[in-house]
């Protein structure tokens, strides 16, 4: 027998589903910072939602990318780096745009997190498009980069950190590479 409490929970779930349904298959998921001209390629008009990964540890890409989008009158939606899978599971993602530093026939060197999006794209049959990065990044960050967020320490003392900033994305996970 359904109770009032059950009904309230169902109503809440329905409301969420309704909101997500409105953007089903319309999300362009962006990771990294592209050369400015690349942002002009984003489709104009309604029907597209642009989601931006925050890009730990520096968040610099989220900041820069969000500013580029706002400058083009596109209001981005920020998500944490662990939330991409949810968008795929809910079938919201239309395509993925990743920044890359260099590429060859085997694959491309992308900002850290690119492999997660490549694998998710493959599993969910979502195109993964690569565009050139605006800047060269180091391969590894410092351990302490991950111990802080916005200048505030978030990790216990004397802990170790592993901070890759770039990773290789094999060709099998890439749909298009744009020069």
């Amino acid at each position, binding site marked *: 027998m359904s*109770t*009032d*409490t*059950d009904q*309230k*929970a*169902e109503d*809440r*779930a329905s409301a*969420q589903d309704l*909101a997500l349904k409105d953007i089903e298959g319309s999300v362009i998921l962006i990771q990294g910072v592209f050369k400015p001209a690349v942002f002009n390629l984003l489709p104009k008009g309604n029907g597209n939602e642009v*989601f*931006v*990964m*925050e890009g*730990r540890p520096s*968040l610099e890409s*989220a*900041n820069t990318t*969000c*500013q580029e989008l*706002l400058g083009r009158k596109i*209001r*981005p*939606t*920020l*998500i*944490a*780096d*662990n*939330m*991409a*899978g*949810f968008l795929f*599971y809910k079938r919201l993602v239309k395509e993925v745009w990743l920044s890359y530093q260099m590429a060859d026939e085997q694959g491309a060197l992308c900002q*850290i*997190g690119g*492999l*997660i999006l*490549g*694998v*998710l794209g*493959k*599993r969910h049959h979502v195109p993964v498009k690569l565009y050139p990065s605006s800047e060269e990044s180091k391969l590894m960050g410092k351990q302490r980069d*991950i*111990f802080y*967020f*916005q200048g*505030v320490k978030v*990790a*216990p003392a*004397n*802990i*170790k*950190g*592993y*901070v*890759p900033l770039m*990773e*290789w994305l094999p060709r099998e996970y890439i749909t298009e590479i744009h020069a």
Partner: protein
Amino acid sequence: METKTIKESPLFWPARLKGPVLWVLDETLIPQKLKYIKVRNTKEAVDVIRKMKTRAFGQFLVVMQTFLLEINNVGNGGTGRGPSLRLLNKIQKTAEALNNSRPTFPFAEVTSIVVRWARQAIEKKIDIRVFVTKSIEGYLAGIRVRRLERVRKIAALIKNGDSILTHCNVSGELAMAAYLCRQQNKQAHFFATETRPYFQGSKLTAWELQRMGADVTLVADNAVGSLMADKLINKVIVGSDRSCANGDFANKIGTYQIAVLAKEFGIPFYVLTQPSDKVKTGRDIPVEIRNPRELLTYLKRKVVSGVVSGFYPGFDVVPHELITKAIAIDVH
């Protein structure tokens, strides 16, 4: 008994009733402080749950012990029909308030157990206060034994030389298993994801693993693919907040993409579950969408400048086909 040899993490049993007060570990203050919040009634219990002062198993403990609080608050008298019905009414209202605290964790499943005991007491014309209190205390004692058994199962799963990735926090069990492994002279390495936006991996998991003497390294949530591609981990162990009849489960946001990556790279994926058949599949689990402000700001400072929207699903769902093995405990 081997049970007594397991060093306990504060996160293993983060809420304890002492007299008229439930002391709840404020997980948001770790690792800076180990401080307990005073909870005296249902309203305060819902508050600590909603504000994520406690989560996962802590929520379960708060729920069960809030009934004990409220039974105490009502005072003596439970055998006559009038007092019994008043107490049943109080228990039902407590259940309703707790059920509405957060959507994804199966609060209604947990509270319905207590409501059932209360109804049984009335049917059998026994002291509802005594019966429900004893039932909750016995039930929690049983859960404690089963969780300690599971700690040993996790330790048995971990082999010498393993490198294990975990996400968010599994309420003490993994850290205690790490301690057992050290006792058994097994060397294991742990990678903890930081788990944005609340950093449970940085603040809780890395902290408690370190307290247990485990070798632990912190990584950003986006470094998981790199770890797997570079063969730096050979097992994934995560917890769960809710299970389905078909084996799907919900856990902290980020678990799904870790499971997908593990499948892609052929890495065994283990989950600690509390099985339930109340929900058929993961598609039926209501996922809590939290206030985006929790993502867009940190300690009241904006994460990015400008008029930017945010989206913060608190959990995601892992389909059963991505799971290598569920390490379950029966909570019913």
